[in-house]
């Protein structure tokens, strides 16, 4: 039944938000601390426990999958209700912050990937003497 999946998702969501609120009040902040993240971890854990026990038939998975697939449309709706007029008064903050973040991360990726041995790269791409896709 498709509702089982959606109900599982709902339980993880509510429990996650509840734990996040509890963590918040324990830490003395009037905020939900990582409730969404906790809910995600709960759902991953639920899946880990249920799949080997054959408790997740396809229909049940579809009850969660539908909402997972709705995430981009929901984000589009979220974007459509932001105070963009006010944000544009902020000037080039968004552009600069994004560009700087990408450059810093790009250098970090390059540095880490240079630590990989040439042998393992050759083993993955035996037929390619050139880098891929360029």
């Amino acid at each position, binding site marked *: 039944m498709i509702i089982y999946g959606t109900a599982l998702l709902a339980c993880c969501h509510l429990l996650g938000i509840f734990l996040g609120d509890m963590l918040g009040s324990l830490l003395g*902040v009037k905020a939900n*601390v990582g409730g969404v993240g906790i809910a995600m971890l709960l759902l991953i854990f639920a*899946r880990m426990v249920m799949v080997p026990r054959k408790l997740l038939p396809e229909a049940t998975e579809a009850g969660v999958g539908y909402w997972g697939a709705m995430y*981009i449309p929901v*984000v589009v709706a979220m974007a*459509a209700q932001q105070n963009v007029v006010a944000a544009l008064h902020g000037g080039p903050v968004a552009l600069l912050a994004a560009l700087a973040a990408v450059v810093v991360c790009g250098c970090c990726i390059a540095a880490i990937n240079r630590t990989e041995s040439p042998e393992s790269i050759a083993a993955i791409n035996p037929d390619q003497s050139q880098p891929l896709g360029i």
Partner: protein
Amino acid sequence: MLELFEKAARQNGLVMAFAVVGIIVLLSGKISRTLTFGRIHGSAIAISIGLLLAYWGGTQTGGKNGLVDVTLFGGIGLMGGAMLRDFAIVATAFEVQATEARKAGLIGIVALFLGTILPFIVGAAIARAFGYTDAISMTTIGAGAVTYIVGPVTGAAIGASSEVMALSIATGLVKAIIVMVGTPVAARFLGLKTPRSAMVFGGLAGTVSGVSAGLAATDRRLVPYGALVATFHTGLGCLLGPSLLFFVTKAIVG
């Protein structure tokens, strides 16, 4: 006739929102394929259109809620509101296969943490340089530099203003677009040749849409590895953003 349609749309706000967003996503897919040849992912274009519509709504009504202040589109507020947004984000965690995830190993985890903390520091520092000196705004914009989901989730949790939220989303969106377009160009510099390198990339570059679109345009075989690590990115960011990162920022700037 027109009045009847308006009445139907107003009384079925959420249903109207599904239809409107569906049309936006459809158009974005077409724009992505025909105008950018798939370089810019349809979802990024759809979100940009959403932001454009929010701008239009804001100028039309003078309100703070973008398109939602236009009565006809009130249902967008429910669809993109906190409840359904968080529900959909939690659901994406289901696509993570725990057994596959273990293969990502230590380097994926290191990349994930670096990919959350580095953009956050850069974003928060630039926000501060531009006069957003309070801890809430710095954290929200810094979180936006992680991904466009982490930004608003963090902002909503710590009580940021809608203006800062919009800036934070814009930051994450610009980042996703740069990753999508820039990855194939920078593939040689980034050393994107192996599954391991794709996992490092997925962890550090963040944004599933940016990573999957960028890797697809570089080497299709690398897509699942990058996307796998990137799917953890939003979860980790949502966990750290309103908690650890906010507290550290608050402790530093007061």
